[in-house]
């Protein structure tokens, strides 16, 4: 079969696009496929999130054009939110903190949810659990002090110290 675009070369790229459940087939030569962005050099799916992100974030991009705050950059890797809207990729783990405010609506749109509900790493998860435990003990200690139960407060204080020491030694 010949390429549907140039009608000249052999069509080697067969694309099946599914838009709203409807299937469309396109046959292109490799050159035409690249030229029309159907077969990007990066090898990305033309319907991938990266390519759709600009669309999703249109209001954001417009607000950039009218001047998003300068210095709106991740302090660790230097990525700006505008950079992020261009390729859809974060630069480092700290980007999640840096762009914290804007992530909830974005993640909600992608996943329908905003809170992780799956596996927790064992080592780091242990640390998180310990952090939660310490926080609970601190609240208990405050209550004990308020009730002038100083003996109990001291006991809890020692327990907290023990937990914190262990944590640092990990």
């Amino acid at each position, binding site marked *: 079969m010949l390429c549907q675009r140039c009608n000249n070369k*052999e069509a*080697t*790229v*067969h*694309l*099946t696009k*599914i838009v709203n*459940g*409807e*299937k469309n087939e396109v046959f292109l030569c490799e050159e035409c496929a690249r030229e029309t962005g*159907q*077969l990007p050099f*990066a*090898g*990305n*799916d*033309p*319907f*991938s*999130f*990266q390519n759709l992100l600009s669309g999703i974030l249109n209001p954001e991009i417009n607000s950039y054009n009218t001047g998003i705050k300068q210095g709106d950059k991740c302090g*660790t*890797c*230097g*990525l700006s939110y505008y950079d992020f809207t261009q*390729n*859809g*990729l*974060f*630069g*480092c*783990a700290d980007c*999640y903190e840096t762009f914290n405010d804007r*992530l909830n609506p*974005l*993640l909600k749109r*992608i*996943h*329908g*949810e*905003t*809170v*992780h*509900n*799956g*596996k*927790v*790493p*064992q*080592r*780091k*998860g242990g640390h*998180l659990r310990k952090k939660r435990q310490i926080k609970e003990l601190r609240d208990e200690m405050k209550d004990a002090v308020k009730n002038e139960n100083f003996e109990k407060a001291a006991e809890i204080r020692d327990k907290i110290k023990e937990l914190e020491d262990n944590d640092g030694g990990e």
Partner: protein
Amino acid sequence: MSLKDIINNNVTHWISGEGPDNEIVLSSRIRLARNIEDEPYPNQASKEEKQSVSKRVIEAISSQKQLKLHYINLADMPELERDLLVEKHLISPVHAREGYEKGVFLDDNERISVMINEEDHIRIQVLTPGLQLDETWELASELDDLLERKLDFAFSEKWGYLSSCPTNVGTGLRASVMVHLPALSLTNNIGKMLTAVSKLGLTVRGIYGEGSESNGSIYQISNQVTLGHSERDIIDNLNSVSKQIIGQEKQARQYLLQEKESEVIDRIRRSFGILNFAYKISSDEAMKLISNVKLGIDMGIIDNVDKKVLSELMVLTRPAHIQKINGKELSISERDIKRSELIQTRLKM
């Protein structure tokens, strides 16, 4: 080396045509995206930073003794060999292209692959034949735990495993099955199936290439969402949808046998005839014909060919495999000739 040896050397575990529900499900795959806490993601990292990531992952994997994995530095690997790994689905097409400090760990039967410095620092993949998502997940999760003993993964209490792309945040899990649905295609039911599947939070795409063809009626179905649902829920959902699709495809095959028997038999035998006698076959045409003949074997219309052979041929007839088997680079036309030779030799073996 005989052709048999060459084929055996090139056939990975998942291509064996075995596993549960193998007349419809070719393979099950689990992928986990993981990143090291204090390193920039590959898209922002310098050559040295990527080197540091490679080094840390190599150390972590080498220090565990449970799983025997071999490291391949992709920069040291000829392009053709890298393409071979792509055709076997062991690395992604993006990972096969030029770039610093890209590597992959593989086990002996190529069931496990761990990509280093792909879109994320680490992509753990387990690929098994047939429908066995639970076993596949367990192995991937075990490998994840082994690595986590040595590496601090970027993880947030709220958002889970942090990844380079926000579509992977949370579980970092992509579960998928590769299904062969020729009867749903022949009965024009594929569109309906695709719509239904997308409403259930799953995506469907053709195999071989992100954004490429779905020729040979082979589709890959995977979860769309990674945040807010547990790994268990994601896998259970894909499992139950897969079982429904298997049921639908079986019904469509039954219908074809009852209502269109002579047309179907004719189509399958013609395909078998072309595979056996053509002088040149393009990879697209080969996929379609192989798909028809595999259907013929699965439906009992062709009974003198081992069904494993057709699953194998789906991969062996891809361009990099044809060139590898012939030991040299070939033009498209040469490949088409060698492809039909290979198919004919293999069908007689």
